Structure formats: C-alpha cells, structure tokens
C-alpha cells in the first residue's frame, strides 16, 4: 500500500517550510528527498519574488537585493497570487511594506512602492488615444466650468508627504544616484499617452484637482475643491499642465 499525497499536502509543504516533505514523495536515492523537494519550494518563492522585483524595481534598488528578497518572500508566502496572470500580482505590496517593521527606517518606501506600482499599471493599461492639444483651444471660456474630462486608462495620481518622484527618478534615470531633500512632499502624475510611461511632479493642489476630474466632476467644481486644499492652487498653470500631459481621452462639454 503506497501513500498518495494529494495536491493539498504538496501545496501546503511548498508554502510552509516547517512542514516535512509530503509522504509518498520519493526518489531513486532516498525517500522523502528534502533537497529535491526544496527545488519546488525555491521555484515557487523565487518566481513570486521575481514577479514583485519586476513590478517594484526602485524599491529593490533602495533596499538592496537581499533585503528585498526577504521582504518580498515574506509577502508572497502570505499573499499567494489569486490569478495566474502575474501582471496583476502584488498590487497591495506597498501596504505590506508600510507595515513591515524592518523597513521602518525608510518612511518613504511604501509611497515609492506606490509609484513603482502606478508605473507598472500604466505600462500595462488599456491603450487609448489622447485628444490633440488643439482640442482644448476650441472650448468656450463661458462654459469651461461645466466641462468634464475622461482620462486615459493609464492615468494614475499619487499624493505623498515624501519626495517620491525625486527618489524614484534618481534611482531610475541617473547614472549615479543624486542626493534628495527628504523634507519635500511630492505628488505625482503617471500616464502613458503613447508607449512610454511618463512620470511628472505635480504642483500644489493638482493631485486633488486631477483626482476630481478623473472622478468625472466638472472643471469648476474640481478647481474649487483644489483651492480648498491648496490656497496657492493656480488654475491656469494646472490647465496648461493638464493639456501638456496629454492624458485626456475625451472632453465632455
């Protein structure tokens, strides 16, 4: 009579390394072969860590390979993918980072992770064509306050008390990482008007303004909301920024 380990036992032992090799797993050299079974354990955790490393390259760079692996493995083994499409895996990793005590010395890490994640989502988002910049010129000033906008599916808006864009940019684009003033707060706009993802720093109130527009609220209302949060909110500067960013899929007069 041989033992028949079900996939339940096999899967449980893959995830919980304290469990023994499942009964019935064998090899020509020995029964219950630990190192052989360990290949599967390493493959599973290694692949999930790699999926997170691809989505969170700047986080990995900030904490280093070894720290990232340990943190990502901890997340992965407690948060297995629910879909076989790993493009969507790890969306809540920033929340995990925010509560990950060993990373407490880097208070900006979770928000930088949110920027990494926004960049990844923007890269894979549904394609749409931005309206030409000239389309804004034809809007009548009298009715401007009632105009609403539909943004590209690739648009992400982030708000942070940390200089997330400066940190992200110097760890992505600069040959040598430049010093960043960690007392600054930065909001970010992430979008992909064509094939390249663009990351912008937003001026005061813009994150609130753009979020309101993204939620379908008309321009006048979005501007008023932004003014409430940032007294120095500048509407004409923000309109110019909105047009320059090419993030509008549809203008709804």
């Amino acid at each position, binding site marked *: 009579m041989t033992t028949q380990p079900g996939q339940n036992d096999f899967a449980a032992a893959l995830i919980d390394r304290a469990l023994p090799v499942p009964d019935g797993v064998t090899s020509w050299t020995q029964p219950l072969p630990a190192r052989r079974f360990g*290949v599967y354990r390493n493959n599973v955790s290694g692949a999930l860590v790699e999926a997170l490393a691809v989505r969170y390259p700047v986080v990995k760079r900030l904490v280093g390979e070894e720290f990232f692996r340990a943190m990502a493995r901890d997340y992965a083994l407690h948060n297995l993918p629910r879909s076989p499409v790993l493009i969507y895996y790890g969306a809540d990793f920033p929340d995990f980072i925010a509560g990950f005590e060993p990373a407490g010395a880097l208070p900006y890490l979770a928000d930088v992770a949110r920027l990494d994640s926004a960049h990844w989502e923007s890269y894979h988002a549904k394609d749409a064509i931005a309206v030409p910049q000239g389309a804004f010129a034809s809007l009548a000033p009298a009715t401007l306050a009632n105009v609403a906008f539909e943004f590209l599916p690739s648009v992400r808006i982030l708000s942070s008390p940390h200089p997330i864009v400066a940190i992200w940019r110097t760890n992505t684009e600069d040959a040598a990482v430049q010093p960043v003033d960690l007392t600054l707060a930065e909001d970010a706009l992430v979008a992909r008007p064509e094939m390249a993802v663009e990351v912008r720093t937003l001026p005061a109130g813009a994150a609130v303004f753009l979020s309101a527009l993204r939620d379908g609220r008309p321009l006048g209302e979005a501007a008023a909301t932004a003014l409430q949060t940032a007294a120095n909110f500048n509407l004409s500067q923000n309109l110019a920024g909105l047009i320059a960013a090419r993030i509008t899929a549809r203008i709804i007069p």
Partner: protein
Amino acid sequence: MITVATIPARTGIGLKPQHYQEILRDRPGFGFFEVHAENYMGAGGPPHHYLEAVRKDYPLSLHGVALSIGGESPLNRDHLARLKALLERYDCGLFSEHLAWSTHEDAYLDDLLPVPYTGKTLQRVCDHVNETQDFLGRQMLLENPSTYVQFEESTMTEIDFISQIATRTGCGLLLDVNNVFVTCKNHNMDPNAYIDAFPVEHVGEIHLAGHDERRDDTGAPLLIDAHGSPVVNRVWKLYERAISRVGPVPTLIERDANVPPLADLLAEAARADRVLDAERQRRNSHAVAAE
C-alpha cells in the same frame, strides 16, 4: 479542429522585451517566435504593441505556463478564455502547455509541479486536455516535464502516461529535450532510451534550453530546468537523436533568465537549423536511394 500548419519546421526563439527594438530594426531571418501567454495578458501597452509589430513579420507560437492541466482543481475557464483571445488576436500557429500543475484551490503557485503517473491522474489530465482543446477549438501540444521528485503511487512510466494522453485526446506533444535530459539524470534513467521510446508520431515541436547542476542530499546529480544558460553539448546530442526519429519539426531555443544578446540566441538557433537541414538531406537521400 484546426491542425498545426503555420509554424515552419525551422528554429524559433523566445521573444524577450530586451530584444523588441533590435528585432524590429534588423528583422533577423529565422523560423518563428514563441511567447509565454501569461506575459501578454495585460490590457495594453508596449507588450501588445511590440508583439503586434513582430507578428507582422514572423509566425508566432503561444506557450502557456499557468493552465494547471495536471491540477486536481477544475481548469480556470477565465484563463482558457484569455488564452483563446490571444490565439485569435495573434493568429498563433501553435499552442502548447505543460504536463504539470500550478494552481491549487484559488492559489497560483507559479511553478510547474509534478504529477503522479496513475490511472486516476491519467483520466484527470485527459479530461483537462479534452476540455482545453474543446474550448480553444484546436489541437494543443503537451510538454513533457522536468521533475525533481517521484511518487510512490506512480504505476506507469512517464512515456506510457504521455503516450496514452496523446492517443486518448488527440493532442500533439511538445518534446522538451532538455527536460528529458534533466528528468532522466534526476531519476537515474537513460535519456537516449527515453528518446528512443518516445511516441514521436505525435511530436509537433521541440524545445531546447539550458539547465543548472546541483546535488541532492545524497550527493547524486540534481539538474534544474533553469532556462538561464546555453544549451549544453549533451542536450545537443540528444536533440540530434530526437530529430533523427521525429524528422524536422519546429524547434525552439528557450531562454528565460540571464537573457543574452539576441545574436547569442540566433547562433543557437542556427545550430539547431543545421541539425534540421542535415536531417532533411538525410531523408531526401534515403528517398532518392529507395527509388
């Protein structure tokens, strides 16, 4: 059912984002591209943009890694629908998947996990292959696995198991020669004997890749199907042996880790093409001699 027709009996390579620009600029000549289906299941963006551009110039083979055909859980119908959409959108010449499982209940374990070879598991795999082929409306190829452990409960050899699947379901087989080498070395079997016994009449494609070498707890060789290094000479020898039985079929150079310059992959592809050409010549000269 649509049968395999549009992938030529030449060598292809795996399409990697690192090579998108160079491929579109230089349009190197070779048989086909293969992609992992799951990497193209995002909504849009550069992956689809480049795949569409590449597809204009090359035939495409779609290789799934996450369907979990060997799983105890039911097949994921949403995933089948995603595969079908890709096969249609990119008019893929081949679709292949693995004799393995990767999803258990609702958790995706992201590895190709081993299946015991019994009458019961055979029935389950056949049901899943049938379901896949019915859903996709086409023949699929099933790939032999790299395995690191065996199961006490197994009552059949891997070759008997795979042969029965092909016979019962009408699926084709993807013969991964590196997997043959890895599996045979890991289980103290003769890779030549494996190739000699393989049901070659069902083979629609061959995979070639590199592997890593480790040791198990007893010091015995433990080879790992890592796809992170060039194809080794002993696998090339095994490939020649396989081709002499199978005849010229589409052959893929797989590389998923430590992706080298495109030229390195093209050089490996050219080496495989020479094996295919030599076999064509050998078969032609036999045919002539027989007249």
